[in-house]
């Protein structure tokens, strides 16, 4: 494969963020400078924005011109880039972790996508190609997969019509976001404040309304856009997740890299038996393109089917939970009945929460260390908390406020299971 450049329209898109920046500049100090010149402010503002954009496009074009990628004879993906300081990046595709086609909003307007190729390794071990036509991206994705000797597992790409494992209807997504405990409480407060403000005609309340009403609406909107059209498919490399309205994102979760999962059910969702499932994946810190959500909202049975895909052989409803003793009610008066811990041959599980119930599980083979902590109040009651430390991620496996004797046995069992899991 000969070295080639990304799509020539790329600089135009990459420089686009400069447009609002130029506009903001012109609204502020720039406007003052320009109006002193005496010419029409609007004409100058437009001219300034265009010139500013052109400068950024020029810079982006130079970088684009110097950026080439290819797959070399060793089957490595190479990227040479940089105008003055050249950098040569080389990804060993035999260690391929994921290759995803992502369509950010602006790029999608002109029919382009970006391709993210990631290999196993610490730190920044990925190449992001901005931007390619959809056809080029799919072709390169196929070549990358072929080079990684997984040619047999090529998926038909983003348009696969096969039945998804799970789909989140937008109505349910919106309802679930509105019914999150904090959001719902804030919206309720907002409603009360609005009524009170209208009744008393006081203007001060409106500022509070803007905060209590604005924050949840903002977070609901963000989450809705990010998780719109959430869809999970089974591929031979793992579960493939696609989501997003303004920019679509795709990501594959290989089952052997799942370290821990949490099944969360907020109070107001339980009427419909909805749950959310989050995952901790090795070496992957959550960012926009790497969701730590396996499913944002689904009926429990459907969610458990997804969990079974990544944790085969674990019966979530049949976990042999050992509950916290009665004395825990002095430490956790609300939730003590739900505090529990279970150890099966595959996983350690912890249950917690009253309003938002949560079951967290970690695979023995992935648990890094076992921690026991005992606060002053816990000691008075003869209680302790058992933590199973896993790779950084959203899932925290902590069995809180169990009796000392329980924690003692559980810790010893967990350590034994951790050793056994690695020797298999």
């Amino acid at each position, binding site marked *: 494969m000969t070295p080639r450049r990304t799509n020539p329209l790329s600089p135009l898109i990459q420089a686009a963020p400069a447009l609002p920046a130029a506009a903001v500049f012109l609204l502020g100090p720039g406007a003052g400078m320009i109006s002193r010149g005496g010419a029409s402010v609007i004409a100058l503002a437009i001219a300034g924005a265009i010139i500013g954009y052109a400068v950024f496009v020029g810079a982006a074009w130079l970088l684009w011109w110097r950026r080439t990628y290819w797959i070399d004879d060793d089957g490595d993906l190479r990227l040479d880039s940089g105008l003055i300081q050249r950098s040569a990046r080389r990804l060993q595709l035999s260690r391929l972790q994921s290759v995803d086609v992502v369509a950010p909003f602006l790029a999608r307007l002109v029919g382009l996508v970006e391709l993210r190729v990631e290999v196993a390794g610490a730190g920044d071990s990925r190449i992001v190609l901005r931007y390619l036509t959809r056809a080029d991206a799919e072709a390169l994705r196929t070549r990358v997969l072929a080079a990684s000797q997984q040619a047999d597992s090529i998926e038909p790409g983003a348009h696969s019509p096969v039945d998804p494992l799970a789909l989140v209807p937008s109505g349910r997504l919106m309802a679930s976001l509105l019914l999150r405990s904090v959001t719902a409480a804030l919206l309720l407060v907002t409603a009360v404040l609005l009524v009170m403000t209208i009744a008393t005609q006081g203007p001060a309340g409106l500022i509070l309304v803007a905060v209590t009403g604005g924050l949840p609406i903002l977070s609901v909107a963000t989450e809705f856009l990010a998780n719109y059209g959430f869809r999970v498919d089974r591929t031979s490399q793992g579960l493939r997740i696609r989501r997003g309205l303004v920019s679509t994102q795709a990501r594959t979760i290989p089952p052997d890299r799942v370290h821990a999962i949490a099944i969360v059910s907020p109070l107001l969702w339980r009427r419909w038996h909805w749950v959310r499932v989050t995952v901790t994946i*090795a*070496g992957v810190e959550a960012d926009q393109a790497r969701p730590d959500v396996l499913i944002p909202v689904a009926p429990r049975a459907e969610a458990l089917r997804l969990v079974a895909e990544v944790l085969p052989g674990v019966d979530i409803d049949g976990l042999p939970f050992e509950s916290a003793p009665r004395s825990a009610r002095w430490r956790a008066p609300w939730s003590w009945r739900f505090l529990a811990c279970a150890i099966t041959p595959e996983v350690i599980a912890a249950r917690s929460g009253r309003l938002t119930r949560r079951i967290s599980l970690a695979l023995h083979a992935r*648990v*890094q*260390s*076992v*921690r*026991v*902590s*005992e*606060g*002053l109040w816990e*000691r008075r009651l003869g209680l*302790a908390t058992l*933590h199973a*430390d*896993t*790779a*950084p991620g959203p899932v925290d496996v902590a069995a809180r406020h169990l009796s*000392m*004797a329980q*924690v*003692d*046995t559980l*810790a*010893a069992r967990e*350590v*034994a299971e*951790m*050793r056994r899991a*690695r020797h298999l």
Partner: protein
Amino acid sequence: MSFGGDPFTAPGSVGGGSSDGAGGSGWVPVSPRLATARRITLLLGYLLVIAGGVGIAISPLAIGWLVAYAVVALTALVWIWWIIGRRVRSFGYAERDNDLLVVSGILIRRLVIVPYGRMQMVDLTAGPIDRWLGISTVQLHTAAATTDATIPGLLPADAVALRDRLAARGEQRNAGL
């Protein structure tokens, strides 16, 4: 395998035992020089407190304020001095066949169990005061950021030997992430 009802009881010893973690037998305690190091740091911090006292003395405030300030500062000093001693005595570690155990803490007691096979890195560090007093800190890292296995106050020879033993056992048992 169990710790005999109380996970903070030293491995090997069955039943009760001291609740100060390292007080019982079985735990290897850390050097009392660690308390000296921490007390020196405390005294250095108290230079600021003294400066505050001087500030009050030269200000037009009544002498009563200075006395109250001194009483509070001295009480705090004595109390922290004593806490440092207990906290240092609470540290202990034990090397078992397959894992390392570390205990610490007075108000919140902590026990960390790190299987040798899960260790990714062993750090050996010593600050300027530590070096002057001849102690070092050994810290174990796993793939989990929450693993908090730090053993401060080791004599340099012990620290190096411990690090090398841990590294050797880790290599032997390492199964990767």
